[in-house]
């Protein structure tokens, strides 16, 4: 039995000057805000700045939050989205530079994988997919990030983006088509590799490694 206070209670305490309440809210929600910012911007530093600004903005506008309309995480997503879009307008070049930061982390994860060959192929795929996501137009990217990478429902994503649910559906569908088109060559190779894997497991795995390295 836990006695964790709810988000509205914590916001009330925070509005009354309770710093511990702010700390609890931060620990509870900072991952989602940071992850969203990082997935949208691709830069660790920019994501940290946005995360900090989101919580500073929350302390200033806590009274605007209405728990009857949306959850606190959705509200924080909305603040983060506005800040991310502002960041986009200021600097678009930063994204291309900072993709390597993510790739380095994936390389580090590779070293501890059980099956290096399979990990390499999977990592190559996810790299290409990340790159494709980063190259999507921002309105399509945010839908993919919100719904696919962060698991928000269409309704929640519509609240965050401030648009109808139907728009979210159509944007997500279009974004997936764009991702498939951009990764089509990679996926064809992957399909072939799976067939090979089913028939000749060892041979197919070697072939997979060779083809991924050539991509």
């Amino acid at each position, binding site marked *: 039995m836990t006695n964790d206070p709810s988000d509205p209670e914590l916001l009330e305490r925070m509005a009354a000057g309770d710093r511990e309440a702010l700390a609890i809210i931060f620990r509870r929600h900072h991952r989602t805000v940071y992850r969203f910012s990082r997935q949208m911007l691709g830069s660790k530093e920019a994501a*940290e700045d946005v995360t900090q600004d989101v919580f500073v903005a929350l302390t200033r506008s806590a009274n605007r939050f209405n728990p009857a309309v949306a959850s606190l995480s959705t509200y924080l997503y909305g603040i983060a989205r506005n800040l991310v879009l502002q960041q986009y307008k200021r600097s678009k070049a930063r994204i291309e530079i900072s993709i390597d930061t993510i790739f380095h982390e994936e390389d580090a994860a590779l070293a501890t994988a059980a099956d290096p060959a399979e990990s390499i192929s999977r990592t190559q795929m996810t790299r290409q997919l990340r790159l494709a996501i980063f190259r999507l137009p921002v309105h399509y990217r945010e839908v993919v990030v919100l719904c696919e*990478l962060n698991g928000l429902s269409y309704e929640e994503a519509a609240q965050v983006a401030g648009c109808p649910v139907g728009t979210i559906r159509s944007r997500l569908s279009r974004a997936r088509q764009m991702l498939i088109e951009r990764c089509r060559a990679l996926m064809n190779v992957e399909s072939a590799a799976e067939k090979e894997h089913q028939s000749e497991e060892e041979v197919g795995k070697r072939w997979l490694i060779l083809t991924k390295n050539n991509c």
Partner: protein
Amino acid sequence: MADTHQEQLLSDLLRDVARDDERLEAPHLEARILASASLPERARSARSRAWVMWPVAAAAVFAVAVTFRPKPDTTNRAVQDSTEVAVAESSPAPVRKQLEAARKQPVRSVRLQPDRSARGVRLQPERSRQSDPDLRAQAPERATVESPVAHSQIEFVPLLPMTEQELAGPFQIVRVQMPGASLGSLRSPLVLPNEMIEADVLLGEDGRARAIRVNTSGSIYPWRPR
């Protein structure tokens, strides 16, 4: 069929990306945010302190102004707007002697003291009390208690340079009431420009004002006893 397979593969890859990104976190931001966030309570208390401090400061300024405000001279209020001649005395011989002596001394101003026995004006050069044994012997206690304000009580400030002939006098002292602004740079910062003050003007024979002495027993130095 191929499209379905690609859709499925894309979904799998997206799940992989999402799973990888679950590790992303920035716990070190907590200290930064707690340090930089100004909570409403603190901001409100600062604002309320400001709202309290301003009236308190205004009240303190008002109290100081009322305390040191010059008290109106009820006896002269009726004639404050007019220039009033109060004293017209002259005594050429002692004045000339003392002015000549004053010119020989490296002084910046001369001090005029009324000589009751001679019913005239006696000019005395301002001398250093430290270097003059007579002054030290006459009033040793004044040397320790005399303040700059008390010093200015009897000091005439020259308005015009005086020639040899003008030093011969005769002089006239005219007591006037005038707005504080008329003193120009001689005005004390505590005297309001539109405040009426009382001063003694030393007039030469040609009727020109040679020196002026602000009457500190008047209303311009209210902290001094009358």
